[in-house]
């Protein structure tokens, strides 16, 4: 085990040299210009409350530590506030890079159970947050239609939304996710 006198060694087998290219290709084109200044970590609202360090995530991505990054719970601590993206002195689209890596993580089977549940709700109702009895009643009391004029009150529209999610592969993607958080 590494202590203060030893280094944590990164093995060649842990490095995926294509990882950064994939991130660049998906849109975070300036990620290689990162100078590890730490501005992203210093402005991060989530980093104020947790050990999440955006700079570390960017470094690991640049090193090609694909498996470590994609299986990491850190990836899901970002509230996507975009402050790091706004402040990055190298104009790296940091938040976009995180979203790109999250897509890859889900593709590799890493999805938090609550996120799977929200996706299932979207698949079945067209809403990630569907109506409930309390709010049906509240809508009535407020003089609104009990069901909003969305997929909730239009079966044909819901069918269309579900067809789109079938065509994009979202249905298969979510149904194939194992229900465990990492």
């Amino acid at each position: 085990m590494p202590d203060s006198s030893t280094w944590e060694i990164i093995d060649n087998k842990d490095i995926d040299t294509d990882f950064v290219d994939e991130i660049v290709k998906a849109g975070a084109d300036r990620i290689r210009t990162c100078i590890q200044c730490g501005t992203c970590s210093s402005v991060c609202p989530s980093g104020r409350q947790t050990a999440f360090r955006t700079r570390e995530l960017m470094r690991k991505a640049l090193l090609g530590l694909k498996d470590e990054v994609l299986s990491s719970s850190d990836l899901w601590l970002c509230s996507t506030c975009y402050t790091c993206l706004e402040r990055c002195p190298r104009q790296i689209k940091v938040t976009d890079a995180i979203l790109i890596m999250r897509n890859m993580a889900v593709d590799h089977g890493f999805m938090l159970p609550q996120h799977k549940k929200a996706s299932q709700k979207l698949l079945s109702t067209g809403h990630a947050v569907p109506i409930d009895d309390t709010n049906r009643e509240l809508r009535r009391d407020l003089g609104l239609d009990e069901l909003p004029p969305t997929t909730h009150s239009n079966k044909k529209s819901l069918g269309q939304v579900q067809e789109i999610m079938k065509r994009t592969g979202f249905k298969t993607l979510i149904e194939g996710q194992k229900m465990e958080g990492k």
Partner: protein
Amino acid sequence: MTEVQTYSFFLGCVMPNRLPGLEASIRVVLPKLGVHLEDLKGASCCPAPGVVRSFDEPTWLALASRNLALAEMSGHDIITGCNGCYATFKEALTEVRDHPERLKEVKKIFKGLKLRYKGKVEAKHIIEVIAELGPDLVRSSVTRPLKGLKVGVHYGCHLLKPSKNRPWEQTQNPTFLDELVEATGAESVKYKDKNLCCGAGGGVRGSQVALSYDIAKEKLDNLIEAGVDCIVDVCSFCHLQYESAQAQLNKDLGENRYQIPVIYYTQLLGLAIGLDPAELGLGNHVISTQPLLEKILD
């Protein structure tokens, strides 16, 4: 009064299904400013930029484009009262406009579904439309000035950022919402870290609610320190977050420290133009709005 503008009103998920009072306040207040809202029938989740876009970007783009296509086919620009939905539409439009191959990809998915889409429609936020009408119009509609009311303004992240794709002149220290709040006669109070995130976005509230409340708590403490009478927001998700975070923090800490009423901008404006609080959904908040109403109505 200026000429009537018509928009396709996109509700999203949280507003109609968790905070219908906000929807009611928008439906009653906007026509009074000359803004007509037409329901966007059959719309779905936007879908949420922090979650669905995090899971599968092409699905996010396709569903967002479907909602935009419904508006485009109706002939009106889309309008939303949620920063998350606003972000989804702004980003999805930019994606298909900057990358024609993405529009092609969307159209391929739409094949046979009777959806026509060119990516020509515009996406607006309710507060953007009110800001365009201007604080003077707001001021002239006020019949019950909210004198002496100390407001903590919360813009929310996705209303302002990424700034490259937002209409505001100022991103780091914007003032348009403060001006619109002050046009009601209320005072927008300065407080520490005013532009800090509410903590709900990016799927954080959905998956790690305790962390999201830790982020919200920091701002709530700053607002208490500043002695505000209420928070004014323009996002249904931030609104849900500040209401539920306060209730949970009180429970966790076994005290009643967190009692700041959370008010959506059209609820505040509705009060200032003399509407009934019940009609504005102010009787259905988790954190009671009573102290605020007593201050205004007495």
